[in-house]
């Protein structure tokens, strides 16, 4: 990481943005689980028996992921999960777009209806950036990882190089 970017408050801001994205997405979906399940069905990728359980699990998991990032618990694993989830969402939208499916993205439940396509894929790629940054440089300023596990903050001056860090 360039030295001029080594600022613990910048890292904290990135982490809070990532947390906010997941909390907003999860809460928006959880406000109307059934509507989200209908949106999920529109993607036509899950067996019908899995649409309902995944329709409940995904919003809850997004909220928990947001909480983990908010409090800074297991920052790097949480950021990796965040990146994998975003990549999955982008892939799901890309296949719907390629097949010409006219469906709502469902990215923020019923709060932001937008057709899944190039725009929403670009938006999700943008929203994935904080998670990718945190997976590479875990921001642990004011975090559970730092306070309880003594993990260093990658954004603080003099932080240990990536090879010296552990998975937590």
């Amino acid at each position, binding site marked *: 990481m360039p030295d001029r970017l080594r600022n613990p408050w910048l890292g904290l801001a990135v982490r809070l943005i990532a947390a906010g994205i997941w909390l907003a997405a999860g809460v928006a979906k959880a406000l*109307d*689980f*059934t*509507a989200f*399940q*209908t*949106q999920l*069905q*529109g993607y*036509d990728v899950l067996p*019908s*028996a899995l*649409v*309902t*359980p*995944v329709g*409940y*699990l995904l919003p*809850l*998991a997004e909220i*928990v992921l947001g909480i*983990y990032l908010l409090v800074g*618990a*297991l920052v790097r694993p949480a950021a990796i999960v965040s990146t994998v989830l975003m990549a999955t969402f982008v892939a799901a939208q890309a296949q719907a777009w390629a097949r010409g*499916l*006219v*469906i*709502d993205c*469902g990215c923020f439940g*019923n709060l932001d*209806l*937008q*057709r899944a396509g190039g725009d929403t894929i670009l938006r999700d790629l943008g929203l994935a950036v904080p998670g990718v940054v945190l997976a590479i440089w875990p921001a642990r300023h004011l975090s*559970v990882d730092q306070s*309880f*596990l*003594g993990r260093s903050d990658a954004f603080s001056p003099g932080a240990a190089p990536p090879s010296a860090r552990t998975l*937590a």
Partner: protein
Amino acid sequence: MGKARRERERREHEEARRRRAIAIWVATGVVAVALAATAGILSNRTDSAPVPSAADPTSADAQAPPELVAAAKALDFRPHTEPGVGLMEDKPASAARAAANPDLLAPGTQAPPFSLRTPEGDTVSLADYRGKAVLLELFATWCPHCQAEAPHLERLSDQLDPAKAAILAIDGSSGDAASVYAFHRYFGLTYPALLDPSGTPGSFTQPGPAGPVSRSYRLGVFPTFYVIGPDGTVRWAGDGEQPTAKLRQELERAANA
């Protein structure tokens, strides 16, 4: 001496950190299991309406070609249900949700004209209904939400003034004639169901792609509903299961405008 003590303290400190890391990972595992269990409980807790029983197919079969009846019987069509299915139809109109598909034709748009065949081979055109309000349903025979809607739509159809309003259904999944007839035969539906074939035929066991008319109506979610006014313009659009009261309300509003 001091060095050894510092070393011991460092080891104890490291050990404490290791224990806390394990505790956090264990807690994360517990959270993951709790999430999965919660999703499972919610999925199973959600009720679904009972599967409607089969209607007496005698009168429908009497008017259909024998080979179509035989093909439909051979399919052994049976509806199935899933958690959350069939719970919307009896709710008040105010329970209707916003459409999931943002690209549905907007009210005021001219409804795309069509002329399609029924499984029995009759041709039905939207133009035949000019002067009446039409509830158009884009459905699929394999779709549990569409199966749950079917008996409610039939009851609504019975209650409509035939001079003012009608219901039409189009199979939006390229369903073949036997599957579509089997669907309507099972539920004893009296309003027309129309075939909208694409290059790849579908059936109630194998979803097919949307046909050209279904695509012109921007089908994205099954079922999709349009209320078309007597002048041929779209008056209302929605998708997913709907309260029957909402469908009736929109139909009456269009018919009496």
